[in-house]
């Protein structure tokens, strides 16, 4: 492995971090340490990359991640009522994880579903044209 190499080297860092994120719902310190060693990078360098991207998390997260879009096209279509409904449904605030580890709740920037506003992502599924009434049913599918 070399530091600047294209294959298997540094160029794979983001891919490897993404893989770790999807496998264990976060990037642990052990993972960062291992990646730093195998790619011959400093821990800080790997941590710096992991902390840059908003879909990567260095803190443990729930089994399912809810991301409600808070950008203007969704806000115009009452995204706030969706945020409130999710909050009531799962009993936590944005930035938190339910005690049973089922959901993490986040607000996110434009997800490119403005034609179906208000919209949210649960894991990588996009749910659009939401109404407060639909929330419970949508979330039911995620255990």
């Amino acid at each position, binding site marked *: 492995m070399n530091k600047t190499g294209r294959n298997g080297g540094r160029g794979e860092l983001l891919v490897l971090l993404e893989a770790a994120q999807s496998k264990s719902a976060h990037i642990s310190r052990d993972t960062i340490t291992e990646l730093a060693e195998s790619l011959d990078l*400093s*821990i800080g360098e790997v*941590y*710096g990359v992991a902390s840059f991207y908003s879909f990567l998390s260095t803190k443990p997260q729930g089994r399912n991640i809810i991301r409600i879009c808070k950008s203007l096209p969704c806000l115009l279509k009452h995204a706030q009522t969706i945020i409130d409904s999710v909050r009531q449904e799962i009993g936590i605030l944005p930035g938190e994880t339910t005690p049973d580890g089922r959901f993490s709740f986040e607000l996110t920037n434009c997800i490119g579903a403005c034609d179906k506003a208000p919209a949210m992502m649960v894991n990588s599924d996009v749910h659009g044209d939401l109404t407060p009434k639909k929330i419970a049913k949508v979330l039911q599918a995620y255990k």
Partner: protein
Amino acid sequence: MALLVTLNGTQVRGRPGQTILELAQENGVDIPTLCHHADLSPLGACRVCVVEVEGSRTLVGSCHTPIADGMVIHTHSPKVLESRRVIVELLLASHSGVCYMCDKANMCELRKIAAELDVGLPRFQVRKHYYPLEDVSPYIARDLTKCIMCRRCVRACNEVAKHDVFAIAYRGFDSKIVVDFDQPIDKEVCRDCGVCIPFCPTGALSQPRETKTEKKGKPLVVTS
């Protein structure tokens, strides 16, 4: 092959590959810099060294822009000076160091440039960066409240000391120079090196204060 460049109205000769900053320095024109350091690779992040190049929509960073034949450069036009002032003002607005309590005092490059550009109290209202003082290491003290993200320490550590202790983490206004998992600096590799300390333009990096040594001289007595 010499390149002909007009620098502040005067025709000068430069070499291919030379930056605008290098050409200016060679010709006795003083352009302020913060993130730039002659011993480090260029970064272009602070934008204090911007200059006007005729035909360019924006100002350009002089520390990283190579000269070209026929280039017409203004290093101190009103537009340039105003922009530099605003940039320094921005840096001061979120900087929470208090100059009269800072060890860097008159050695501080930010303070020096602010004075030269006639920047006083910043007009911008923005939250300040507050971080706890890192004084666990006996070899280096770090006060990130004074950091202006010039990354000279990161490059000095990587390129000069070859230690890779520092890295950049987070994003935007929250970006920060970190060690490992964003821990207070106290690493084996940091002992006795100290290479980065003189590279810091502000008081963010310093040698820990020796408080136990005896100070000679009379105690300060104020009499009316």
